[in-house]
């Protein structure tokens, strides 16, 4: 990573040993990308992400933290960032509802038998396929490109609840309180999000292996 060129306005007392991170600018170099990516995944807007990252660093300085480049510091910063993002969600849902019941609302109905005694069953040829050695895909960079594209296709609200549940591990009650949505709406969004993501990966990756 490139260091900033201009050191001239740093106080002389700040000795520059290799691991001396008393200069907050170095924190930006060291942790900025990671925090930005984290914020961008959740806020989807680069300007909001930048603001959130900036506020995170400011809060860290205010807390009088000194950094030594240890890996725990990254996760401590992420903790601050996460709370700022949650605050943003709480503020936002007072104006707009966080429910999206339009996305994937047909729930792949064309893949199910519609009438007769077998109604509601998968049409066999259109049902979920075998995914050969799916665990191994996690080591494949091209898989991650596909996953990233598929995840990016989820609309904002569905992506948000999916991330809060699957990545942050928040419980149903916590997500509903944070976003002010009903439990059933949450579960419907999660169900449709998973369905869509699964379908996208099957079409664009596993079905082509």
């Amino acid at each position, binding site marked *: 990573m490139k260091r900033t060129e201009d050191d001239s306005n740093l106080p002389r007392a700040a000795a520059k040993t290799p691991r001396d991170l008393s200069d907050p600018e170095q924190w930006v170099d060291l942790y900025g990308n990671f925090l930005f990516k984290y914020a961008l995944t959740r806020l989807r807007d680069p300007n909001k992400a930048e603001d959130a990252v*900036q506020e995170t660093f400011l809060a860290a300085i205010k807390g009088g933290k000194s950094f030594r480049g240890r890996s725990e510091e990254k996760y401590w910063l992420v903790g601050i960032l996460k709370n700022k993002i949650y605050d943003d969600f709480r503020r936002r849902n007072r104006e707009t509802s966080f429910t999206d019941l339009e996305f994937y609302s047909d729930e792949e109905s064309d893949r199910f038998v519609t009438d007769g005694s077998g109604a509601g069953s998968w049409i066999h040829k259109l*049902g979920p396929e075998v995914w050969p050695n799916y665990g191994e895909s996690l080591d494949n960079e091209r898989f991650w490109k596909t996953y*990233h594209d598929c995840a990016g296709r989820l609309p904002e609200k569905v992506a948000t609840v999916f991330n809060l549940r*699957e990545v942050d591990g928040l419980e149903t009650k916590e997500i509903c309180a944070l976003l002010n949505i009903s439990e059933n709406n949450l579960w419907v969004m999660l169900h449709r999000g*998973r369905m869509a993501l699964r379908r996208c990966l099957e079409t664009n990756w596993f079905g082509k292996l």
Partner: protein
Amino acid sequence: MNRLIKAIRALLPNCKQAIRLQSDALDRPLSTSQWLGLRLHLAFCKWCVRYGEHIKFLQIAAQCHEHDHRQEQAMPPEARERIKRALKSRKD
């Protein structure tokens, strides 16, 4: 006998219902009858079994995606500079 069959049928979810139950099971406890019905359905439906495996895999993939450094998106240089300036002026 017909009544018994009807009662069992009522307990048994179809595939549409079974995949919704499998999704819900990741987020809340199922009721006993829901759980039983689902297990019965999965005993006979390989497609829904696959579906369940797939959505559990998505959980793992979602977490790995978060931590995968190769997906790191660089902050635009202008943003980086703006933040540095803001931190500097705050320090002064």
